[in-house]
């Protein structure tokens, strides 16, 4: 089992992006997916960093793929999506629009925002050229096990969401703009004010969701700290680590140590709690009554609810 760093979901300025990917070169991760996945309006601000980051990461021996946008509606988004096929790197498809421009048989990766819930879908994608699939975070362990086994037979590497605020929803509406009383078309890029998204609590102060432009994430950071053994046994090949703004290299180190058996689940969780935004973890989609649930204990400073 190894680590994949997913695309950054948040809006960071170019200098921050540069430092982030330079830092990843030395991190114990096997591959990196980068590019804009949430909002095409952000891309011009940091687009020039992509080529540099790709160069740095390839030189460091990482596999690199470029993500498609997750919800493609505008003409320029369609053009940009079609142009991905010509970059010469694998595409991580996060909207099926990207497949439209991809010649059949050209290998591609499938991101967690594509609905791969069952064998029929995985088989179809594999036949179309998928070589790596990060399953949707919503899937329970028994589904993961079925798909990881089938992936093994089909020659598709199956990975799961290992760490990061969960991408729960996408909308036509921008919630950041709405919270600032702006229209989406004149959003003034207010999502850039919140490098890990803007938190949304319930009326009783429960830490619930996080908005990031048109995206809604969980406020808890999902972590497979307690699930490494069962996922490995299920045949999962890789864990996806989703970028956050602070301590990211240390987080990658900690997961690598956990996979290598140098850290226990509790030790990893204890390492993570002070580092993740908001200090809350969850793993309920994989093994729990609901996504927000966490397998760890209250001593990790992570009690559910208030």
């Amino acid at each position, binding site marked *: 089992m190894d680590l994949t760093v997913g695309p950054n979901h948040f809006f960071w300025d170019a200098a921050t992006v540069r430092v982030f990917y330079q830092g990843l070169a030395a991190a114990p991760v096997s591959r990196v997916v980068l590019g804009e996945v949430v909002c095409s309006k952000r891309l011009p601000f940091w687009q020039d960093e992509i080529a540099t980051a790709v160069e740095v990461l390839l030189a460091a021996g990482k596999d690199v793929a470029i993500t498609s946008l997750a*919800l*493609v*509606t505008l003409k320029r*988004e*369609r053009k940009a*999506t079609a142009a991905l096929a010509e970059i010469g790197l694998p595409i991580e498809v996060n*909207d*099926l*629009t990207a*497949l*439209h*421009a991809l010649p059949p048989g050209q290998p591609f990766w499938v991101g967690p*925002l594509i*609905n791969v*819930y*069952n*064998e*029929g*879908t995985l*088989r*179809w*994608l594999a036949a179309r050229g998928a070589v790596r699939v990060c399953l*949707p*975070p*919503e*899937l329970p362990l*028994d*589904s993961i096990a079925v*798909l990881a086994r089938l992936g093994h037979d089909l020659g598709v590497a199956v990975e799961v969401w290992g760490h990061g605020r*969960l991408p*729960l*929803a*996408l*909308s*036509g*509406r921008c*919630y950041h*703009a*709405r*919270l600032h009383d702006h*229209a989406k*078309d004149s959003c003034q890029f207010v999502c850039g004010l919140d490098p890990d998204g*803007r938190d*949304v*609590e*319930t*009326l009783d*102060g*429960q830490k*619930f969701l996080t*908005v990031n432009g048109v995206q*809604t994430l*969980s406020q808890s950071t999902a972590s497979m700290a307690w699930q490494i053994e069962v996922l490995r046994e299920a045949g999962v090949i890789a864990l996806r680590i989703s970028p956050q703004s602070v301590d990211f290299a240390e987080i990658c180190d900690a997961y690598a140590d956990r996979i290598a058996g140098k850290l226990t689940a509790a030790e990893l969780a204890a390492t993570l709690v002070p580092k993740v935004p908001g200090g809350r973890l969850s793993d*309920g*989609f994989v093994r729990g*009554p*609901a*996504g*927000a649930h966490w397998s760890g204990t209250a001593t990790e400073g992570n009690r*559910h609810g208030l």
Partner: protein
Amino acid sequence: MELVCPAGTPAALRAAVEAGAQTVYCGFADETNARNFPGLNFDRDEMAAGVAFAHGRGAKVLVAINTFPHAGAEAMWHRAIADAETLGADAVILADIGLLAHAATHHPDLRRHLSVQAAAANPDVINFYAETFGVKRVVLPRVLTVDEIAAINREIDVETEVFVFGGLCVMAEGRCSLSSYATGKSPNMNGVCSPASHVDYAEEPGGLTARLGGFTIHRTAKGQPAPYPTLCKGCFTSGNQTGHVFEDPVSLDATHLIPALARAGVTALKIEGRQRSRAYVAEVVRSFRAAIEAQAAGRPMPEAALAKLSEGQAATTGAYAKTWR
């Protein structure tokens, strides 16, 4: 334009057809459809009778099989497609790639519509579904403006169907796991959103509190109407702001956009509400049928009848107007 009406029960199906629905849509009573609510939907005998009733009156029946099959349990979804064909359905409404591929291979003569749950939001991806799986109609996701719908129709050869009335998803459908984050039950996997089984009400000093999976969704003062605690319509706090962060507790009402949607090249107008009573369905269908006929004849919209439908309800035209975003 064709009016596509909800039928959550055999009685609602008959009421919709009698009220003038050209087409009804319904589902089997299990997790294969996205309105898997207790007491709703059709067993196989009811579906056969419903199809016979509709066909006898010149109406069509679409069967929604629009959840995403569970790994290891695809047989239930495959059986639903086979049964829909055997029972005489005019089309199936599908979202999952694997199911679309299965239906195209094993039931090539059964017409396939792409569910809103597939969130196909541009001409490229719609053409991809049409070319790859022989999809004949696409139900558009509720993230598009009327102008964008018109632009899409200029670049595709398949029909489009859009929602005009009823419950409103704020998120791109089929790509939302907010409900399962709070409750473990999701539209994609279980055909439910914010399920009643996970709702609790409590009389508290601040008012009637509605919680979903333990998360407070809203609190209403005594005597105020308490909306159902649908997660994305809840009242939350962010920073120093408290309010409906995602959307107010409103429903969709695009009746006034019927002429614009017709000009945009839309084939069918869809009414949400398989969970609604047969009396509600009949009234909505009658009003919309009148509106569509007026539109086709170039007469003004029957304002009074349409206004009556949304009486006492907060309504929005949602993403159809650009300012909503």
